[in-house]
């Protein structure tokens, strides 16, 4: 069955989370857990951005994409480094929904884009989270 949906949802914002200031304890805990090297004093490792938690993980207005899903990976573009004390804003939108066919049949992909900026409105990261459904 072909995937038909109201394309006006593409680009729509479904979450806006103002995170608490980044603490040294959070950075230390991330480094200890992931083993990612510290870039410098007061700096968080680049992938620390993935430790941020949005208030809403999934949009509410999705079309029926299927019952089974898995994480199909992330594309991350990094910008300004994250520093202890930064107040990070995460804004998430429905970036794309598309179908493709492969060896195992038809798959539907949902791409959620989260743009992270700091208190100076500098771009910290753009994260495209892909999920595959069937």
């Amino acid at each position, binding site marked *: 069955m072909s995937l038909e949906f109201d394309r006006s949802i593409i680009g729509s914002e479904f979450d806006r989370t103002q995170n608490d200031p980044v603490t040294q304890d959070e950075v230390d805990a991330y480094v200890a857990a992931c083993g990612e090297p510290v870039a410098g004093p007061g700096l968080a490792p680049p992938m620390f951005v993935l430790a941020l938690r949005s208030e809403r993980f999934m949009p509410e207005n999705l079309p029926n994409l299927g019952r089974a899903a898995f994480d199909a990976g992330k594309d991350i573009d990094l910008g300004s480094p994250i520093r202890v004390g930064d107040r990070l804003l995460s804004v998430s939108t429905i970036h794309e929904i598309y*179908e493709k*066919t492969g060896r195992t049949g038809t798959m539907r*992909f949902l791409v959620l884009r989260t743009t992270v900026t700091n208190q100076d409105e500098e771009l910290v990261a753009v994260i495209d989270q892909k999920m595959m459904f069937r």
Partner: protein
Amino acid sequence: MILDLHTHSEASEDSRAPVETYLKWLTKKRELLPIDGIVLTEHRQWNPDVDYRDLEDKYQILILRGAEVETDYGHILVYGVNDDIAQRFDFTNVRLSAQEVVHEVARMGGVAAPCHPGRPTIGLCEHYASRPALDGVVTVEALNGGSRRGENERVQELIDKHGYRSFGGSDSHLVSFVGICATEFEDEVRNIDELVRVLKAGTYRPVDYRDRLKQAA
């Protein structure tokens, strides 16, 4: 003249390969991979505004463009995409009619060539087992660099039975895969129109550089 007729750049959602990095890689590997040009066949899309002439001049490697579309008989490479073809088909539709693609692309000046025919679900062989053969197919991708064991081998029977011409392509999604399989043409190909012409009526054959690369490693 040797062209890799099936490549994907970062314009495809499942590739991470910048076009210029392909060209740098081919330049670096020139002795092992004598590729004169590549054809970018991005998944389910056609962007008429892309222009790689500066990169062609810089690296002296021909860059042509096509598209890989998805149909009820599997994936099909479309060469010679023009405004008529782009308007006729919704390239994002994964359920295009293969017969319409083959006929209409030819009528509008291009050529539609089924790729990785031996692949399950998205290859011609499996569909031919239960449905009529497509009318108007002139060539198929007999050698695909992304195929798993046995998938390329299934294609020879298809070619013998239907009299198709055959070509090769890397189906590269990563830089180091570009050119591992390609097509050697007797004629010179300088642009997409010439590629369409020779694919329909010229002399060419798939070439495989994987063993050569393996031995050099």
